[in-house]
């Protein structure tokens, strides 16, 4: 089960939290939650949907608590294993999206879910999903220079 969904959960956590280290911690926490309280799933898709929602909620909690906490500045010379490759504008643009768009964007553009499926999965109305996708697309186009530049 871990190997089936770890990439999905990790990518979603990375998209929300913006760093590999935080994404690793969050991914571990999500799977630990499932192991601590095992539950029965109807099928693999049900399992995946649960993990996606759990990861999204966990990332929101992390961001909320991180915004309240005053974290100390790390030394500049400390190597960062989760450093993002420099010059990856698309990646930076996606990470810069508002958090409320990220799950929809990920599920739509990468996982291939339909808007109706995303709405059912996240518990938001389909119209809201469509508007989120539209607004995210507009933001990305603006950030990436009108969509002319791809990667």
């Amino acid at each position, binding site marked *: 089960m871990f190997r089936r969904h*770890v990439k999905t959960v990790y990518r979603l956590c990375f998209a929300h939290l913006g760093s590999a280290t935080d994404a690793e911690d969050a991914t571990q926490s999500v799977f630990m939650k499932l192991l601590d309280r095992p539950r029965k799933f109807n099928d693999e898709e049900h399992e995946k949907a649960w993990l996606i929602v759990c990861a999204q909620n966990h990332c929101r909690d992390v961001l909320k608590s991180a915004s309240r906490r005053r974290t100390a500045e790390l030394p500049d010379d400390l190597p960062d294993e989760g450093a993002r490759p420099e010059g990856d504008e698309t*990646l930076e643009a996606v990470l810069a999206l508002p958090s409320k768009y990220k799950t929809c964007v990920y599920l739509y553009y990468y996982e291939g879910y339909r*808007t109706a499926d995303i709405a059912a999965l996240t518990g938001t109305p389909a119209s809201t999903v469509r508007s989120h996708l539209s607004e995210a697309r507009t933001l990305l186009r603006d950030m990436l220079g009108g969509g002319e530049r791809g990667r």
Partner: protein
Amino acid sequence: MDDERFRRIDAEGPIGRTRRENGDASRAEAAPAHAPRRPQDVALDDAIASAFDRMGPSEEAEARMLAAVLSARGEHALPTARETGGLPLKPIVADCPTQQRKTARTSRFVLQAVAAAACLVLVAGVGAFALYANGLNGRNTSGSSQSAVQSIGDGASAGSSAEPSKDASTGNEAPQADQSVGAESASSSSNGSAGEDAGARYPLVQLASGQTLRVVLDDAGRPLTADPSLVGAELEQATAFGGASGDTTACAVFASADVAHPFAVRYDGGDRYYWADEAG
């Protein structure tokens, strides 16, 4: 915004194929037909998907996360790259060596406990069987002693008749008495033969109080003759029984000065005393 735009799945390009593999292929194939997209839209979609693709974990990160999750649960993961279509048939975890040893010890302990319990049950069963057999032997001994007594009594009567000189005074009388008593008893189905062989044939004596006495037998199974000097006063007249045919005969019960045997019995028509004890 055109809703159709958000209902299609990319069917071109490597990213689209990757997404179809990661997502539900049936879902992708079931997507309704859409209006042709602008090249810049296609490029943007591909760019977004590609960005997410680059967010994926490395092999080391995956192994690290798995190890961290399992170590938190006290388990260790087996390193494996086997995945049957992304659906492992069973969890790819195994007990750590310590837990394997613990499991082996527990299994051995359980086996030993089961074996010990089985031995105890067997011993208890053998003991119970021995007690039961002992009880049976006791009853069989009394029955066999009765038959032995009867046979000895038969032999005694034959012997007494064959050796009249030994028991001249009593032997002559005894057979006659036996004969007389036997004649009397023969006429009565309830009374058996009396005299010298009565003790052999009727080893049990029923007292008026309901108590039952048993004539003591020696090692050879013959009635143990009492020492007349130790025989005390007569206690009562009683009925002796014990024959296979259910016959009875009259007898007298006496007190005894013998420490081992509290009673003595003399059968009517006979002059010998036999030690008797309370029947169990």
